C-alpha cells in the first residue's frame, strides 16, 4: 500500500528581472531557507533533494554538483531533473512517487532559473531537434505564436479575450509580494496597444523573463501532520508526454494531447467528475494569454471553444467561481526552472490557507499544472482532506 503524501511548506524568492547580488546557488538557497523556516525543519532533517533547472539558460552543466553544499545536500541523495518548463512540477511528481514508495520521508524540491545570465534564444535552439528543427526555428515566441494562431482559428477567441487574461494576471500579481510584473492600472486597451511580437501575440500577452527560485517541502504521512497544521495532501500527481517533433501534434494549443491526457488521469485519481465545479482554485502554467484560454478548454474547465466566454464571464477572476492564477501566474513571473514548482507551491499555499493577500476563501481542492512547450504536461491535485 502506497503511503499518503503531502506538501507541508513552500518558499520562494521575490522574482525580478535581474538578481545581481547572488549567484545561482545562493538564489536557490534563499527559497530553501524560506521553505524550511515555514516548516520549522532543519536542513539536516531533509532526507533528499530534487533539483529542477534548464542548464542551457545559465551555461552551467550539472548544477547539482555546483550547488550540493549550498542546498544542504552533500552526503545525501540529490537528483537533478530537466523536463523543460515543466521541470518544477516534475520535481514534485518525482517526490510524490518516492515518498509514496516509502523511499524517503522528507524531500525538498527546488527549482530555479536566472534568465538574466543566459541567452534565451540560443538555449531554446538547443531544445530543437538538431537536424529537423534548429535550422528553421524562430525562437520561443515565433513557435508559440504559430500554435496560438491554430487555437484562434479553432476557437474564435479574440485579442480582447487574450487581453483580459493579461489584465487579470497583472492585477492579481499586485497581491503577491513575490511577483515580478505588477501592473495595478493595466487595461485591456493597454494590452491591445502594446507591440506586436509575433501575430497574434503582443508584448503584454507574453510572460517576462525572471530570476527566481522556489522550494517545496514534501513529506509522507508519518511526518506530514507534524510539519504543517493543515498539509496539502497530494490526490494526484501525473505526467504525460506528446510526440517527439514540434509539428507532430496537429492542433497544438487547441488540443494539447499531453495536458488532456494528464488532467483526465488526475481527475480520475482524485475522483473529480466535474473539475469546474469541484476545484476551488487553479494555478496553471500559462506562458502567454492565449495559452491560458486554450488550457481552460484542454483541462475541461469549459467546453471546447468556450475559453473566451470563460474569461468574459469572469469565472476565473479572483472573485469568480474558479479563480485561476491568484498569484499572477507565469504572465507575472517566469524563472523557468522554478515556474512550474511555483504553481505547485501556490496551489499548496491556497490549500493550506497560507496564501496571504492572494488567498481565495474556503479552498478545499486546488489544481496545479506544468507546461513544457507542449512536449510535457504535469497535473497535480491537492486537497486539505487526507486521502
Amino acid at each position, binding site marked *: 500500500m502506497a503511503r499518503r503524501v503531502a506538501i507541508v511548506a513552500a518558499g520562494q524568492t521575490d522574482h525580478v528581472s535581474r*538578481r*545581481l*547580488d*547572488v*549567484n545561482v*546557488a545562493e538564489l536557490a*538557497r534563499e527559497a530553501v531557507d524560506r521553505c524550511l523556516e515555514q516548516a520549522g525543519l532543519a536542513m*539536516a532533517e531533509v532526507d533528499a533533494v530534487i533539483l529542477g533547472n534548464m542548464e542551457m539558460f545559465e*551555461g*552551467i552543466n550539472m548544477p547539482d554538483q555546483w550547488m550540493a*553544499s*549550498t*542546498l*544542504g*545536500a*552533500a*552526503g545525501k541523495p540529490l537528483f537533478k531533473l530537466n523536463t523543460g518548463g515543466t521541470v518544477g512540477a516534475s520535481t514534485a511528481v518525482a517526490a510524490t512517487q518516492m515518498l509514496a514508495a516509502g523511499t524517503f520521508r522528507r524531500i525538498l524540491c527546488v527549482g530555479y532559473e*536566472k534568465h*538574466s*545570465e*543566459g*541567452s534565451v*534564444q*540560443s*538555449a531554446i*535552439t*538547443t531544445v530543437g*531537434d*538538431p*537536424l*529537423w*528543427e*534548429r*535550422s*528553421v526555428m*524562430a*525562437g520561443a*515566441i*515565433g*513557435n508559440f*505564436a*504559430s*500554435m*496560438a*494562431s*491554430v487555437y484562434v*482559428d479553432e476557437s474564435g477567441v479574440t485579442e480582447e479575450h487574450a487581453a483580459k487574461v493579461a489584465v487579470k494576471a497583472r492585477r492579481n500579481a499586485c497581491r503577491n509580494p513575490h511577483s515580478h510584473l505588477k501592473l495595478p492600472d493595466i487595461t485591456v486597451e493597454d494590452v491591445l496597444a502594446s*507591440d*506586436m*511580437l*509575433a*501575430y*497574434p*501575440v503582443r508584448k503584454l500577452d507574453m510572460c517576462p523573463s525572471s530570476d527566481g527560485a522556489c522550494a517545496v517541502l514534501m513529506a509522507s504521512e508519518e511526518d506530514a501532520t507534524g510539519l504543517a497544521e493543515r498539509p496539502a495532501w497530494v490526490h494526484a500527481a501525473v505526467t504525460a508526454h506528446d*510526440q517527439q*517533433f514540434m*509539428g*507532430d501534434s*496537429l492542433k*497544438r494549443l487547441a488540443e494539447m494531447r499531453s495536458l488532456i491526457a494528464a488532467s483526465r488521469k488526475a481527475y480520475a485519481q482524485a475522483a473529480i467528475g466535474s473539475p469546474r465545479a469541484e476545484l476551488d482554485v487553479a494555478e496553471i502554467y500559462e506562458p502567454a494569454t492565449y495559452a491560458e484560454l486554450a488550457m481552460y478548454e484542454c483541462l475541461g474547465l469549459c467546453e471546447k471553444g468556450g475559453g473566451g466566454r470563460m474569461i468574459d464571464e469572469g469565472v476565473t477572476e479572483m472573485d469568480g467561481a474558479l479563480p485561476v492564477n491568484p498569484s499572477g501566474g507565469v504572465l507575472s513571473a517566469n524563472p523557468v526552472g522554478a515556474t512550474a514548482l511555483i504553481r505547485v507551491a501556490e496551489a499548496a499555499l491556497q490549500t493550506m490557507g497560507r496564501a496571504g493577500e492572494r488567498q481565495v476563501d474556503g479552498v478545499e481542492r486546488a489544481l496545479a499544472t506544468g507546461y513544457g512547450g507542449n512536449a510535457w504536461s504535469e497535473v497535480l491535485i491537492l486537497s486539505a482532506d487526507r486521502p
Partner: protein
Amino acid sequence: MTDEPLRLERQITLRYRFAAGRFATPFFRALRSEGRVLATVDADGNALLPPRPVSGLTNTPTTGWVEVGPTATLSGYTVVHVPFIDPMTGVRRPVPYGFGLVRFDGASTNIYHLIDETDRAKLRVGLPLEPVFKPVEERQGNLADIRFFRVRDGGEPAPARPIPPPDASDPLVYEQKIDLPYVYTAGAAQRAFLRGLAEGRMIASVDGDGRRYVPARGHAPDGRPLPGTEEVGPRGILEAATVAHHLPGAPAFGLIRIDGSETPMLHRLGEGAQRLGPGAAVEAVFAAGQEEPSVNAIAHFRPAP
C-alpha cells in the same frame, strides 16, 4: 573594497557531429538531389514527417515509406516582429518575416518553416502552399534547402504515394556549432575572493568557530552559512598533483590547501612545482594585468621557500 555586482560575461561554443541515422539520411538525400519529400507510414496509415522508426500516434513501429507533397497546406502561422539572432549562423534574421506550421499534402504531421508573406491578413489556416527550393548546387541536405513556402495558385494537392524503402546506406553525418553566450553573477563571498586576488590578497570565508574556507564561498560544505571573511595565504600545502600530458605543454595542476583552510583549491603548478608531490609547501604567484576579476589573477603556485 567595493561590493558592486560582479558579472562575468562568457561564451561556450558547442560543437557536435550528429549521425542522421536510417531515416533522416534517405530523406535529406532525396530532398537535396531531387526535391522529393519522403515520410514513413504507421499501421493506421498516418504519414509521419519527419520519417521515424516508431509512430507516436499508435506507439508501434512504422511499416513503410511514402512520398508526399511537395505541395503543402498552412496549418498555423505568425508574422515575427521580434529581432532574432540565429545561434546556428550568428546572423540576425530581418524582421518582419512569415513563419508557420506547414503540412505537406498527404502527410499527417506538420513542420515549422518560413513563409514568404509578411501581411498576416493574407495568411489563414488551410492556405495552399508550395515550397521554393534553393538551386540544387546550393543545397546542403537540410530543411533550409527549402528557402521558404509561398502561396500556391490552384492545382490539386497530391496524395501520399507508396514507395519502396529507400537506401539508407552511407549514412550522413552533420557537423554543428552553437554559440551559447552567458553571464556568471558572482555571490558576495565570490566577489570578495576575486576582487581580493586582483589586489594580490587571498580571502577565506570563516564560520563561527574560526574555520576557514578557500576559495571564499557563501556556505560551508555541510550547508551552514559562512558570515565572515578573513585574509589568508598565500602559502599552502599541496594535497594532490597531476601532469596533464594530453594537453599542449603538459601543464601541471594541483589541489592546494591554503594554510588554515578546511578546503583545498584547484590551480596550476609552475616554476619547479610541477614535480612536487603531496605534502610539499607551495605559494601563490600573482599575475599582473588581469582585465577582470578571475582566478587567473593567480598565475600559478610555485615551491615555497
